């Protein structure tokens, strides 16, 4: 599998498969008899990233940080409040209903829950073939053949096409979900915690399947997870989210070896090490994520950050390049001087 190439996210060769700029999704909070808007949940608050062809961006963060909202907003399952989403260079937020429906074949999604993501009343074959039916692809027979081929590709038997979802195991169900996502030959697949609900051994199989498919079809993945080990395994680049913002974004190895943001550092220190004799490091972060309805001013992380200063409580830190192709949003990290940046860009 090709490893991540060190490159500026904005300067990838060719058109990125997915480009997101300053994406925001604010959910109104309504209260009272008249359902008047009393505030907003700042689920996603200015997120930017891009994914090159054949690459995987791992998006990590605690639950409630807005990862799943990002996943849904980039394919307009949720209408973003503002921002720009380009799939293969095309701004999908400006498309009308019909255009959007047609262009949906370029990006598909795999869900976390293998149980509720399959209609319990449809056979596995119908589920996988449905996207083809919706887009009027091929004749009845051609669709059948394509579905059989997809079953074979994801490691299911074609003879299982007539079985209902409840007759499959969790791992098999997730394979059905993957086959459904592949049916339209998309360029981009969004995985919203696609393995979190599975057994660890099954997780490995599904991840390997996803990586094989990527190598074979040159797919791009937006892989959302809270499990850092899984993300480290599958991603080329990793972005860390905290309360609706990306706080760090870098090539995978750089991020795991040399985290620049205190939050990333804390997340990494929380990963269990499979060695009982190793003494555990002191936990860096205490407490819970603050409410996204009333996020703390300045750096959202300052309430839990062990290094927080007065400036952190006041100013929002911008996401700056603190080392070559390593971006962090922290007042304690200084951006690289311009000369170094231009060298790195060559």
């Amino acid at each position, binding site marked *: 599998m090709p490893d991540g190439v060190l490159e500026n996210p904005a300067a990838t060769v060719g058109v990125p498969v997915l480009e997101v700029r300053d994406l925001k999704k604010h959910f109104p909070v309504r209260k009272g008899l008249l359902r008047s808007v009393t505030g907003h949940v700042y689920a996603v608050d200015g997120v930017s990233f891009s994914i090159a062809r054949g690459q995987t961006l791992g998006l990590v963060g605690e639950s409630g940080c807005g990862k799943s909202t990002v996943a849904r907003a980039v*394919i307009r399952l949720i209408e973003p409040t503002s921002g720009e989403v380009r799939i293969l260079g095309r701004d999908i937020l400006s498309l009308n209903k019909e255009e959007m429906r047609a262009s949906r074949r370029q990006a598909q999604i795999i869900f976390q829950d293998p149980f509720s*993501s*399959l209609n319990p*009343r449809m056979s596995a074959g119908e589920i996988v073939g449905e996207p083809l039916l*919706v887009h009027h692809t091929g004749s009845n027979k051609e669709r059948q053949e394509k579905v059989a081929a997809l079953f074979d590709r994801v490691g299911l038997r074609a003879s299982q096409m007539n079985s209902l979802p409840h007759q499959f195991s969790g791992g098999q169900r997730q394979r059905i979900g993957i086959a*459904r996502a592949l049916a339209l030959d998309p360029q981009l697949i969004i995985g919203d915690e696609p393995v979190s609900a599975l057994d*660890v051994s*099954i997780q490995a199989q599904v991840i390997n399947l996803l990586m094989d498919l990527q190598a074979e079809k040159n797919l791009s993945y937006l892989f959302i997870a809270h499990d850092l080990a899984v993300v480290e395994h599958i991603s080329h680049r990793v972005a860390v989210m905290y309360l609706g913002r990306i706080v760090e974004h870098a090539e995978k190895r750089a991020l795991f070896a040399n985290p620049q943001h205190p939050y990333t550092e804390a997340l990494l220190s929380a990963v269990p090490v499979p060695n009982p004799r190793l003494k555990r490091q002191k936990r860096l972060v205490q407490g819970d994520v603050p409410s996204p309805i009333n996020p703390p001013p300045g750096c959202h992380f300052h309430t839990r950050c062990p290094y927080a200063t007065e400036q952190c409580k006041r100013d929002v830190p911008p996401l700056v390049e603190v080392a070559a192709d390593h971006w962090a949003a922290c007042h304690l990290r200084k951006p690289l001087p311009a000369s170094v940046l231009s060298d790195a860009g060559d």
Partner: protein
Amino acid sequence: MSPPPSDSTPHISNGSDAPDTSPAGSFEAELAKAGANVRSRRGMAVFLARRYPLGGVGLAIVLLFIFVAVFAPYITSHDPLSTNPAISLGAPSAASPMGTDFMGRDLFSRVVYGARTSLAVAFGATLLGVLFGVLIGLASGYLGGWVDLTTQRFIDMLQALPTLILAMAMAAALGPSLVNTIIAIAIPKLPSIARVIRANTLSLREMPFVEAARAMGMSEMRIALRHILPNTLAPLIVLATAGLGTAILVEASLSFLGLGVPEPHPSWGRMLSESAAEYVRTAPWLVIFPGLAITLAVFGTNLLGDALRDLLDPRQRTSN
């Protein structure tokens, strides 16, 4: 957080990877969960008969009534409408097993033909109620917004009146006829069906499989019909069956009050009203047999409805 998948030693999967048994609302899945042999029709029938003996009795009663209604001309030897003053108010005998009424009409024939009226009204009203209830509930739950708001207030209005009062008002307004009786009984059924379908739709439209359908570019109409409607089938069957008994009872009540099915259709309710006051002492069979028919029909549909609810609604199920 779980250890990295690459490090994990392969092991035999624990429970969480076993074939799942609990998707919301799946018929087959619910049956399988209860231990039925879903693959064979016979195995399933045996399982159901053992598990729900009362439901079996209910089904038998309902089937009996359907049989009687369909084959009425072959079962009876008298025309239910032909009068014969000579044998007016005759007691049950070999010739007329249930006796005759004040006009000398054979009561057995009238009760048998009455099953046609009762079942036509019960099934007709249920079908009509389900059709429009589903339409209203689906539109209300799926579209939301002002559609939801207006339909729900309309439903509130209907629900404010008791079933019989509303049916009476409708029947009085529409005038007595078989079709109007069906409509009058169907309208009070709307609120409960629409509410249940709406509630189911509200939870189903947030399901990931609906999101997946949207992500593949499926139209909203198709999502509602293909992904949402089939998954509301279980509660719908329960509601419809449970409502059959009420429909029979309301028809009898309307006919008793003179607002239901008009002459010449024999109706159990009207048979009661014609004879209750005057003849209950002198010719009690005129009250007993139509009353028994109503009781048995309602009893049968209720048993069947209860069994279906136990089977299809896991929240009601107490043990496995």
